């Protein structure tokens, strides 16, 4: 962008600021195994608290699908010293907000709090980790089964169904990541109280958890509070719930066409399985690839074009691999094959030719801007730390980014992939139906 050549300086200046002003995260491990990461940051106005348990839907035992999600719900039903839902209530009244999410690899309890409410947030998480089972009775189980059923029914829209179909197509039905909603609902109905108690004890425990605090707090004040609250929590003696969730087997281009009754236009989704980055700079190269792919596909198919209304490119980091996914909302007349070919043209160019200096400078600027804006979001940083990296380093890494590393990452786009096309079909009366599938692995 020659009009704004001066912006090149910005990258360096912003990085210098980030490097000097950033307080690095401090990590400690309590005797009971709980990993604690404290990242004070005076540039944000509140505090994010995340407790992440290394057990998610992939840890559901066979024929007990939905268990992790159900247990996540049940931990809001009170504890030894808290009435049901009182914890969320207290957080709301303090000016914060809280929620919980069950992902394939982990279950996370998150809160964004005013500084004054951080000890309260920590106390509530201590109650959950140490005493939640004392709040879960048969009545709570019956109610939360109903609520989970309603939650699952509510999200059965097109995007969720497409997501589930993608999981099944990538991993196969037996894989831990391919839990089906309908099966989950049946399984959850049959879960008993002892089942729930065992799952909680084997997964929601200090030696399976990471506690992260990011934002406006003083670690000298908060470290002793964490030690007082969490160090006395004892792990159960039974074994931790661990499982294998390998990368998907892929043999070429797996094509799948889905029909949906209420889809207005068309959708095309392309997913690549990427190797897990082995270093922080490789991770940044993959993020940079996401950016250039987004920009390239948008230029090719969205801006000033009649093919697609929007494009989004997402990265999903799993335990053993990552997924890079391009989703396109196409117009009714768009041709799937032509659009796919144009996406692959962008991908192949990225793999065969390194981006030039001007593009690299612009890209660094984009990534640094993203890092500065993300810095304000303490929760986003806390979640990145819980996943194993600190997003505060992103500006620094972006500045050191080189073109060959992006090209190496892009080389993975020319191989195996899943191509999922969705179009209108009157026959799909109950959500989506598979119209055509070509899986070279079979």
């Amino acid at each position, binding site marked *: *962008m020659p009009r704004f050549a*001066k*912006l090149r300086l*910005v990258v360096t200046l*912003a990085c210098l600021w980030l490097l000097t002003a950033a307080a690095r995260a401090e990590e400690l491990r309590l005797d009971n195994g709980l990993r604690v990461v404290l990242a004070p940051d005076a540039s944000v*106005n*509140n505090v994010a608290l995340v407790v992440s348990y290394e057990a998610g839907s992939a840890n559901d*035992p*066979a*024929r007990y699908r939905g268990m992790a999600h159900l247990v996540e719900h049940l931990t809001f039903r009170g504890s*030894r*010293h808290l009435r049901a*839902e009182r914890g969320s*209530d*207290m957080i*709301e*009244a*303090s*000016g914060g*907000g809280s929620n919980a999410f069950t992902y394939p690899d982990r279950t996370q309890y998150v809160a964004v709090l*005013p500084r*004054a*409410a951080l000890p309260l947030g920590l*106390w509530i998480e*201590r109650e959950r980790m*140490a005493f939640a*089972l*004392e709040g879960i009775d048969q009545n709570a189980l*019956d*109610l*939360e089964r109903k*609520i989970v059923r*309603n*939650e699952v029914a509510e999200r059965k829209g097109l995007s969720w169904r497409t997501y589930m179909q993608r999981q099944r197509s990538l991993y196969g039905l037996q894989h831990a990541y391919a839990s089906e909603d309908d099966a989950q609902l*049946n399984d959850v109905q*049959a879960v008993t109280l*002892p089942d729930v*108690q*065992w*799952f909680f004890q084997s997964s929601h425990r200090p030696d399976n958890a990471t506690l992260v605090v990011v934002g406006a707090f003083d670690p000298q004040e908060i470290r002793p509070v964490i030690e007082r609250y969490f160090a006395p929590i*004892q792990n*159960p003696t*039974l074994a931790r719930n661990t499982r294998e969730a390998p990368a998907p087997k892929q043999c070429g281009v797996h094509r799948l066409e889905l029909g949906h009754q*209420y889809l*207005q*236009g068309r959708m095309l989704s392309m997913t690549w399985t990427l190797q897990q980055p082995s270093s922080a700079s490789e991770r940044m190269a993959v993020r940079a690839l996401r*950016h250039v792919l987004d920009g390239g596909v948008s230029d090719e198919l969205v801006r*000033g074009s*009649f093919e697609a*209304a929007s494009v989004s490119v997402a990265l999903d980091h799993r335990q053993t691999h990552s997924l890079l996914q391009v989703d396109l*909302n196409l117009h009714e007349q768009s041709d799937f094959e032509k659009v796919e070919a144009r996406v692959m043209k962008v991908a192949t160019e990225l793999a065969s030719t390194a981006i030039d200096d001007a593009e690299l400078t*612009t890209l660094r600027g*984009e990534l*640094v*801007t993203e890092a*500065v*804006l993300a810095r*304000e979001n303490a929760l986003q940083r806390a979640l990145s730390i819980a996943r194993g990296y600190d997003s505060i380093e992103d500006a620094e890494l972006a500045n050191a980014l080189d073109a060959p590393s992006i090209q190496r990452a892009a080389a993975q786009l020319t191989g195996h992939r899943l191509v999922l096309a969705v179009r209108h079909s009157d026959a799909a*009366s*109950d959500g989506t139906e598979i119209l055509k599938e070509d899986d070279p692995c079979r």
Partner: protein
Amino acid sequence: MSLSGRLLVAFLGLLVACASRPPLPLPEQPLARTPEEPAHAQPPPLIAAEVESVDVALESTTLPNGMTLLVAPRRQLPYVALSVVARGAGTFESLCAPEVLQLTARAVVEGGTVWTDGKVVEPLRVHGRGVEFDVAADYTHFDLPVLRDALPAGLTVLARTVQKPAFAGGLDPVRVHAIDALKNSSGNVDSQLLKLAAAGSYGEAFAGRLVPSKIDTIRKASDAVIKQCYGMSIVPETSALIAVGDVTLAELRELAEPLFGSWSSRERSRALPAPAPSFESKGRQVHWLVAGDQTQSRVVLLQPAPTQLQPDDEAPFALLSEIAVGASRSRSNNRLRHDQGVTYGLQPELIQGRKVGLLLVQAAFEPDATVDAIRSLLESFEELQEQPVAEAELQDAKRRLLARVAFRAGSNDSLADYLGQLFAQGKGPSWLGQLQASLAAIRPNDLQRVAKQYLRPSDTDLGVYCDWDLRNQLSFIGRVTTYRADLE
């Protein structure tokens, strides 16, 4: 599928699930091994003053062409959230058809810009970010966050985009994108239910502005119509440049005046002459969108609420809505989710614009519980009319509302967004500072007064999407009108 059919399938599913799966290991006893510590049996106290404070320093001035500059200086991070807010360019304010207004806002951003040398340029980006827009009930805003050192470039791009749209290239791609966006926003069950309920209570014209859906209007809008809509909706006298972040008013003025100071409008800003139509009393009516076999029913309930032109009622009603349906522990969420488990939760929205006031509740319920859940919701409104809320409940609601405002002030982006909303509603820079005191003055009888004045639980229109099994039960709620779902 009938109720008995559903029960049979559920029973069989349960039977299969129980019969064939291996048992899990037993939990260990005692369930919790952590010893009791009396010192930690109670939650730690909060520092109330710190929790409730909403502390935002604001500076403002007006340029000679009437455009407002509003700045919230913050030095913590080297970036500035920029926004141009056009008051009056809202779906309930502008004389343009709402579909044309949305097309116009999109064309401003996507339809190219006339640059200094008279050439038309594609939408420009600063560090990968382009101008984004949104059309709300009262206003349209154009946003661009930039790093501090890119502020001159960001302001240049924003100023040119908003002031000198080229509306180039016949706008065909822009039109296609606008049609696609309109289909997505209006072609779903909730939008259809909302439109039916709004048409029942306020008439078709109102519903058409609440849920714009006329694709033909976008197809047929000529370039001249779009330019006219731009000319009478987006003008300097009713616009503000808002900047939140690493900048002061003096710094912003120095950069912005040469860029925005020459902006002049050929046309006068023209708005809808009258407020939105009032609620029509016709008794309770159910607009039934007939569904196939569904695992859940969807319900949209609409209640009148005060507009910004009724400032004495605005804050009490916001508290009332918080207590009735707003919080995760609101009365209705307590009953329907936490105590009965018949829904995942209510989705309330309080729309308080200058010409429209609405309390909207959307929810999905278990089919068999739908009618009782609707009754329960309506009864909760009746309770608020009949009895004042408890002081403790009111205090909790006040804390939550203040906290939410403080939260919105927490990041540059969200504060810029909030200041834009306040500007569009005609609330000056002092309004935020007075919020705490004005909420403190509200008493339980104020809530009861606005509940009686606005809520219409026995005289309202509901949109319900459910299957045939509930046909007879729906008639116990009100007069039923049947519609066929048209989601294409």
